[in-house]
Every structure is written in C-alpha cells, then in structure tokens.
C-alpha cells in the first residue's frame, strides 16, 4: 500500500505540473501614500485615531479598534528603538550567507507600531535590544516606492 521506499517520485506514475500565477499586488490607498512619501520625501507617514489614541505604523486607512476611517496622514520620525532582533547565518536553501544578516523589529518613534527591517553599520556583538536606530535611505534615483527604499536602520 505504500511507495515510501521510492525516493524518486518519477519512478511511479505521475504528472508534472505547477501553479503558475504571477502577481502584481496593489499597495492600497494607505500604502500608496506611505510608499510615495518614502520615495519622494524620505518620510515615514502614519495615521492616527484620536479616539483610541493609537498611531498606526505602517499607516492604515481605518482604526481596527473603533472602525473609523482615518483620513489624515502625519509625518513621524524615521527612527526608533530595537524591540527584538535576530541574526541569520543561512539562507532559505541552507546556504551559508557571506555576511550574517541582522533583522530587527524596530518600533518607530511617536507611533504604536513599527517595521521589520535590516540593521546595518554595526557588529552583531554590539547589538542591544533597546538601542536607538535611524533609517538609511537608498539614493533618490534608486528608490522605487517600496519598503526597500530604506536600505537598513543604523545606530542613531
């Protein structure tokens, strides 16, 4: 009843297939504002619900607590505090990375949220949870209106 001794699935009757869709994802109304400000002005935009006293980063079009539409966008500092970090030594396929990569959850100042991003210009052994970091932007002509328009965060 079992094929579990067969290591090569092509040795049994089979059909080759794939799931071949490609995607062009829509940033959304809030995402459009956020990424254009990032690209054109090196600014982080947030939305704020005054009623619930929540500042959303990344910005959302609505407060998911009281469910009101949030129409106004405000600039917040492009810096924050490392809430947690990890250091990755291997890629997804198990290959050793040429340089270990530091990934952190950066809580953005004056907001109730944050961004997951790379940390640069620091040795892993000097990292601390609670350290202040600031965003380093790509050169203007390289920016595409995406999260990677921030190259990484560096010690502030």
């Amino acid at each position: 009843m079992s094929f579990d001794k067969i290591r090569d699935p092509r040795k049994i009757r089979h059909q080759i297939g794939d799931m071949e869709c490609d995607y062009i994802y829509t940033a959304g109304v809030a995402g459009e504002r956020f990424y254009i400000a990032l690209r054109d002005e090196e600014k982080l935009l947030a939305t704020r619900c005054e009623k619930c006293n929540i500042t959303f980063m990344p910005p959302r079009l609505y407060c998911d607590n009281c469910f009101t539409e949030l129409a106004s966008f405000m600039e917040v500092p492009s810096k924050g505090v490392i809430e947690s970090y990890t250091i990755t030594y291997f890629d997804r396929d198990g290959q050793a990375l040429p340089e270990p990569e530091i990934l952190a959850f950066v809580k953005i100042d004056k907001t109730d949220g944050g961004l997951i991003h790379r940390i640069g210009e620091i040795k892993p052994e000097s990292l601390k949870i609670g350290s202040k970091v600031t965003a380093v932007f790509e050169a203007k002509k390289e920016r595409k209106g995406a999260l990677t328009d921030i190259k990484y965060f560096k010690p502030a």
Partner: protein
Amino acid sequence: MNIRKRVAVIGAGITLYRRRLKESGKELSFYAANMALESAGMSRNEIDSVVMGTAPDAFDGIHMKSENLLDGAGATQKPYTHVYVGGGTGVFAPIGGWWHIASGMHDTCLVVCEEKMSPCFPHPQTAFRSIWDPIISRPLNPNLVWIFALEMHRYMKVHGIPKEHIAQVAVKNKGNALDHPSAQLAAKITVDDVLNSEIMVYPVNRLDISPPSDGAAALILASEDVARKYTDAPVWLDGVGWSLDSAYWTNRDLYFPQYVAKAAKMAYKMAKINDPPQEVSFAEPYDPFTYKELHHMEGLLLAEKGQAPKLTVEGVTARDGDLPICPSGGLLGVGNPIAAAGLMKCCEAFWQLRDEAGKRQVPKAETGVCQAWGDLMQVGTVCVFKRDS
C-alpha cells in the same frame, strides 16, 4: 432539528465592483463592513463574531488571505472563521454566520466576503488551472470556460433550447444592473449583441460571461431578540441549505444540478416553503454565465426542468414580471468578485425585503432566495430570506 434562535439580517454593505480597484483587499473589506455596521446603527464592539468568505487564495495571491483581511473585516481579537466552498462561498458565508446565531452561541455576527482578482496574471483564469484533478483532467489543459461550455451544451441539447433564449439572460441582467450603484458591466444590449459577440468557446459568446472583479460585501446577522433592539424591520434568514457533489463531474448528467436541488430542498423545508414558484417572490440564482441563471432556476425548483428559458423570454423573470430573477443585475451586470458576488445577492435580498432597493425594487417582495454555485460543478448553497410580518 434544534435551532435555538431565529436569525435576522439587520445590515448590509457593498463596495464598487470593478475590474481593478485601488483599494487593498483589507481596505475593500473595511468599506463593506463599515457600511453594513452603519446601516445597522452598530459599532464594532457590538459584534460578537466575524465570518469571512473568500474564493481561492490564488486570486489575491496571498496564502491564507482571510488572516490577511482580518483587521479590515472588523475581526481584530474576535472569534473569526473563514469559510470556503469555491464559487458557492458567497451564499455559504451567511450560512456560517447563521450557525453562530442559530446555535445560541453568539447574538451578533458580521459576515464579510472579499475578492481581489486583479493582482493575478496573466489573467485570473490562470488561478483555475490548478483546481483540476492533476492526473485525470490537467493533461488536457482545461479552462473553466470550456468545461462550462460542455455543461451548457448538454443543457441546451436535452431540452432543445435555442441560444437566443439563453442570450436573453444577459440582456435582462446587464439592463437591471443599470440601476445598481456598484455595477461594473451595466449596459443596455440586445439579444443580437450577445449572439454577435465573439465566440469564446462554443456555445459561449463573450457577452455570456461575467467579468473578473475586485470588490467586497458584508451582512450583519443577529438573534431575534437582539435584532429588535436595532431595527423595526429585520429581514429573516429562515432557511439555509448546502450540498456538495463529488469532483467526478463526468459521473452525472450535467443537464440538471442535483446538488443545487438538494440544497434548495433543505432550505425550503427549514423555511416552511412548500410550493417554491408560488411562495418565492424573487430570486438571485448564481449567474456567472447566462445559462447558469436558467440552470439554477430549475435547480432551485422555481421552474420545471427546461422551462426557465421560456419564462425568461416571456418576461416572467423581468423585474416587473411575476417571478423577478436577479433584480440586482447579477454577476453578469454587477460583476463577479467571486465570494463577494454571492454575498452581493444576499445584500440585494436584504434591500428588496426592506423596500430599500430604490429603482431595483420589485413589487410585493415577501420572500427571496439566493443561491451560489462553484467548484467543479459540484457545490450548491442556498439562503431563504423573508420580510418581517
């Protein structure tokens, strides 16, 4: 059957339906859910649970997209369930909501359906490429249109139905959609326009098919005692039914959807409807293709087998006819963001049964039936709604 609470609908909401919308799936969900809450005069903290319905994740291109949509659907930190039966999902989601209330578990449930098909390239059809059995069917490179063309042709042959009669469904539904503020493909067209449009896959012409769409819709369900606190005009969800056949669609006669009939009988029995054509005042059967409206009218036992085309040609199913069918404009006119298209039909029933359908209002709307269909021609989902009396 032990139903603890009678279930009411007390609010409905819908976005625009378009080929491509700027809003993200979360944002679409928010607009529909928020409109439903506002129409019920409720805030999010009065909602006990949320049910989300979406068709394949492969449209939005986000695996487990219901989790991605959660905050937009108003479900943050609430009991949240995702239901899915392919194209039948839009009428299944309110059944999922009904379970929560009818069981006595919750007093209120927000039901949201979303589909954003525009991210999928080269065409949303591509997402259907992998729904087939990989061994039996996929070697022939099937697509949905030619599979359904086989069903359509069989239906036409068994009853001797001319294509002109089927084309009338597109004329009616696209015309009805002229009065729907969300509509994507409302148009005044003629039977000749349908017959002269490109043959996509014989016997399906371009105007026989609904479009891919982005959109979201929402309903608010409440138990009877709680519903009365919010409104004097609740609409009752008095019958629910669903039935699924096997994926071996080649092992049944395609001319009649038995599984839809089973689902309909289940819902009618619950709603105490004995003579559907007499007791149902209007219906919103699933119409992704012209012939499907007719096929489903017969599955819903609203017409004798093979008689739905005749009723359509005679004007019985027009908005001012004796049995209005798809007064909303249906998927052919309003659009087809799959799960949201099914729920749009339930929103229409709510508005019709509250006399809030504006120019789309059908006279003497007392009982409305909504139905959706999908997967490999194997899913039937049915809801029966009644006016408060």
